[in-house]
């Protein structure tokens, strides 16, 4: 069993090596015309509503759900180091709010090492959310989303 405090702080890290130059990877990750091509799960449509690609700038993507509601991904860029690093806050409504996403792009001999992390809110934030009864809603949101994704 992994250390639970760690699970709750840092939900996951995904590392990949792309056989593609960093500049290309960076563009595919940051340009709206590219984002719409890969962000949404298969079969879902995504709309880039807001894309202020600068520190303090907001981004917002929406995906319509069959029940008429929207699944919203949004955040504020906290750090941008072209073409190496992006740190942004992120909310995924109605699933989870207040996470930090960090993406690193490292060039190595024409290849790109890509590290993606989702960092969970601070303990203080968790405590606040607990008081609001927020955690109780998570499970059912996942069931809904899974059903919707058909997985």
């Amino acid at each position, binding site marked *: 069993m992994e250390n639970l405090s760690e*699970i709750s702080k840092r939900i996951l890290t995904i590392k*990949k090596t792309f056989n593609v130059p960093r500049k290309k990877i960076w563009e595919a990750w940051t340009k709206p015309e590219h984002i719409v091509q890969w962000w949404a799960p298969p079969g879902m449509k995504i709309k880039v509503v807001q894309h202020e690609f600068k520190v303090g700038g907001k981004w917002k993507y929406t995906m319509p759900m069959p029940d008429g509601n929207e699944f919203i991904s949004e955040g504020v860029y906290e750090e941008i180091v072209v073409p190496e690093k992006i740190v942004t806050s992120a909310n995924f409504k109605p699933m989870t709010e207040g996470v930090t996403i960090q993406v690193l792009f490292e060039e190595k001999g024409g290849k790109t090492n890509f590290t993606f992390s989702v960092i969970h809110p601070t303990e203080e934030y968790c405590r606040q959310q607990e008081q609001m009864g927020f955690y*109780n809603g998570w499970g059912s949101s996942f069931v809904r989303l899974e059903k919707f994704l058909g997985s």
Partner: protein
Amino acid sequence: MTIESRRDVFQAIADPTRRKIIDLLSKQPLNLKSIAEYFDISRPAISQQIKILNECGLVDITRAGRETFCSIQPTELKKIADWASRYSVLWEQRIDSFEAYVNTLHTKKNKKNGKSK
């Protein structure tokens, strides 16, 4: 709806003290006194947290004489790991989809430049 009726494992891990208690108990069963020694807060406060963990189904409490023994309930603990991995799956799919897209882009570009067949 009262909060009590909605206790679950995710509420259990929402609090740092409770997470530390879970960490301690996941290594070995402990009595209340030993658990309290790891914390600066009072024993009744620890006792209260353990009560919540018990209500969330994560910790089993047995009394032997004047001693209170606490042990972890692994099946409930597993729900957290399962949940975390479900969450991961969504991101893994998205990153896979990004990878596929980037590779497609790159291949197209190379074709245009005559770098590959």
